[in-house]
């Protein structure tokens, strides 16, 4: 992961180095131009200085010889030294291909001049009149040649200066072009880098803020935000995506829960509608049972007791989960009531694995299914039929199977049911049609509640064929005690 800070620092370093390099290059180039200009100017100054010093030297020599003042001798020597020093500079500063012949002569003339003037002064000091006058004349002659040659050298310099100046202005022109091009190149590079880097930071933030806005508006289901960078923003984006996923899951959970609540409320309401005064009815039924017992009618007593217990179970709080055992007891009571009604026309068989009797199960799940088997399976079948309830364990799952040999379902009905099982909603009015149940709880309600209770879709299997009966199989998770 490259951090944003590192990126920015790198960018600034590149920027500073680049700009400084270009600036330095341009500066040194212009410096070079200035140096060359300066050097060319120095040549003039040097030549001029030499000619002036030559004049001074002649003057001082003259003055010394005429006035014999040692002060002049001192000045003569000083000028002599300076001129000698300047002469040495000629080779390195002025000499080039175009003037080397004249310059060699010039230097030699200076040398002759310096020597002659020195000898003249020395001879004068030694009172050697003949020698000093001839050397004095020679030196004076040579000084005039020097002045002349200086002029011609300066002239040559001026001529070549024209060429030099042309070159310099050409160079200056290139220099300006180079500077402009370099600066614009650097400007473009910096702009690209700036846009790229700032884009690298702001684009993910922009995407994040857009997504956040959507979420705050309630649109949870968006695509994941793509990660383009490898910096802190990657972490932020990934975390954001994860958070959104979590929120979606949470919302779904809450939705499920509220649906369960809604279903239960619905049931309660229906129950309340049905129970005009259930406690009164319940007490009365108990009285009748006692009465029947006192009047010696045990059959009646038993029937009423069954009805009473069915009613009581029905009255209890539907929110509270029940056990498998209680469910089976209710089913048995229900069956007793039905058997009294239908007599030998129907038969009820149970095969129950007793080990799982304490498994929790939503209240009133089994009874509606059995009732369904009665109503749709056996009730209308004149030759009678049988219903078998079997409970068994298999692979850590408890299977509750209700098998009837009744009319069976048409493929349409079955498809509708299975569709529902697979999560597709039915029309509301269709639910109302399915009344006729003693508890008012339909099979669909049962399945829904089971799905929500166990948080699983796959809780029911239905096998059915017209005229051959139906098998209704519930699959519930076993609890630790029975597995």
């Amino acid at each position, binding site marked *: 992961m490259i951090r944003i800070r590192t990126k920015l620092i790198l960018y600034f370093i590149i920027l500073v180095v680049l700009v400084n390099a270009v600036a330095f290059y341009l500066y040194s180039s212009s410096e070079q131009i200035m140096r060359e200009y300066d050097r060319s100017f120095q040549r003039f100054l040097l030549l001029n200085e030499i000619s002036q010093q030559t004049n001074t030297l002649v003057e001082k020599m003259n003055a010394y010889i005429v006035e014999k003042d040692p002060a002049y001798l001192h000045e003569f020597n000083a000028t002599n030294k300076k001129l000698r020093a300047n002469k040495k500079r000629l080779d390195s500063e002025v000499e080039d291909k175009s003037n080397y012949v004249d310059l060699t002569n010039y230097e030699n*003339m200076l040398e002759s001049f310096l020597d002659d003037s020195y000898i003249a002064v020395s001879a004068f000091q030694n009172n050697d009149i003949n020698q000093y006058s001839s050397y004095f004349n020679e030196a004076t002659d040579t000084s005039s040649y020097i002045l002349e040659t200086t002029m011609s050298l300066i002239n040559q310099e001026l001529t070549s200066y024209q060429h030099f100046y042309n070159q310099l202005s050409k160079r200056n022109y290139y220099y300006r072009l180079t500077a402009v091009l370099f600066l614009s190149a650097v400007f473009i590079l910096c702009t690209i880098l700036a846009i790229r880097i700032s884009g690298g930071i702001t684009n993910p933030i922009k995407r994040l803020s857009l997504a956040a806005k959507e979420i705050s508006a309630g649109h949870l289901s968006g695509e994941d935000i793509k990660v383009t960078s490898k910096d802190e923003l990657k972490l932020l984006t990934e975390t954001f995506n994860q958070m959104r996923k979590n929120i979606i899951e949470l919302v779904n959970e809450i939705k499920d829960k509220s649906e369960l609540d809604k279903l239960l409320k619905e049931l309660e309401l229906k129950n309340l509608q049905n129970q005009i005064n259930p406690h009164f009815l319940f007490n009365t039924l108990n009285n009748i049972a006692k009465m029947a017992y006192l009047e010696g009618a045990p059959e009646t007593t038993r029937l009423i007791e069954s009805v009473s217990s069915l009613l009581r179970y029905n009255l209890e709080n539907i929110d509270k989960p029940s056990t498998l055992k209680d469910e089976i007891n209710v089913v048995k009571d229900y069956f007793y009531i039905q058997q009294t009604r239908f007599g030998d026309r129907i038969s009820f068989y149970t095969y129950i694995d007793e080990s799982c009797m304490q498994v929790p199960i939503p209240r009133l799940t089994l009874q509606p299914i059995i009732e369904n088997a009665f109503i749709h399976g056996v009730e209308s079948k004149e030759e009678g039929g049988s219903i078998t309830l079997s409970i068994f364990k298999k692979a850590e799952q408890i299977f509750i199977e209700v098998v009837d040999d009744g009319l069976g379902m048409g493929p349409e009905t079955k498809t509708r049911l299975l569709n529902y099982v697979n999560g597709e909603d039915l029309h509301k009015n269709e639910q109302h049609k399915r009344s006729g149940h003693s508890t008012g709880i339909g099979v669909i309600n049962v399945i829904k509640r089971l799905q929500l209770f166990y948080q699983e879709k796959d809780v029911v299997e239905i096998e059915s064929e017209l005229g051959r009966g139906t098998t209704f199989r519930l699959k519930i998770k076993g609890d630790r005690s029975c597995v």
Partner: protein
Amino acid sequence: MIRLTRVFYVIGFILFVGLFTAAVVYAFKMNEVSKKNNSGIIPSYKYHFVLVPEEMDNDYWRLVEKGAKDAAKKHHVLLEYKGPKQSNIDEHLKELKIAGASRVDGILTQGYNDQQFSPVIDSLENKGIPVITVDTDAPSSNRRAYIGSDNYYSGFIAGKALLEDTKGKVNVAIITGSFQASHQQLRVQGFKDAIRREKRVKIIAIEESKITRIRAAEKANKILTEHPETNAFFGTSALDGIGIAQTVVHLNRQNSMYIIAFDTIEDTINDMKKGIINATVMQEPYEMGYHSVEMMVTIEEGKRVPEINYTDTRVIHRSDLPIATIEQQKRSPS
């Protein structure tokens, strides 16, 4: 949007690369310009000689220079050709003194005038700078050697040619470059000696042209005005012949006039082709220049050279032209 950004980046990058490359190219160009400025190696040489002619822009002396330059190139000598713009003894002497002050290795010069040149040449020799006289000698000086025509002889053969080419009475006028210049004097003297015994030839006037063409023409005009009987001219320096020819043509007397000139400069040859100038004395300036440098190199090497070295002189007529064939004839045997 993303594609647009990409296009932007690509364009930006291409722009950057282009600008940067252009900048580098111009930076190189800039450096190239400054490099050129400082280039130029000072050539090395063994000796530094100066050739001082009587006049810089003189066709004859240019030929001397050419010979000297060729020899200088062969012997790695730095040869300077410096002299007065117009023939002038003072300037000529000054150039010699400047060369002395410049401490050159050797001086090649025209002797010109013995009295004025000898002290200067002697002082140069005293300083240890060898001097060779070219074309004209300064025999009383301490110069190491002389190379050039035998001027007396060349004047003499000019006189001989006049005698051969003319018949009857001849009134000849001489226009000489300078009365002071020793070579001019010698030429005039040689000419005079050649015609002395012939009674029919008489020297009618001698004038000085200061070796300019205009002066020569002027003097010729003066002579022809003062002495209309003049029917022959002798010009002893290179430009005298053509100056005379100009005047003669101007006065339309070219048919009755015999002109003998000196040297083979182009204008003289042209006038010869036209038949205005009848003959000229041919010297060998190239040889003089070439051998003078070779002799100076020999001196520098510490060897001795003969003091007097005469180069060939001869009279040529129109029939001998062109010059190239003469030179070829002359060079092939040697």
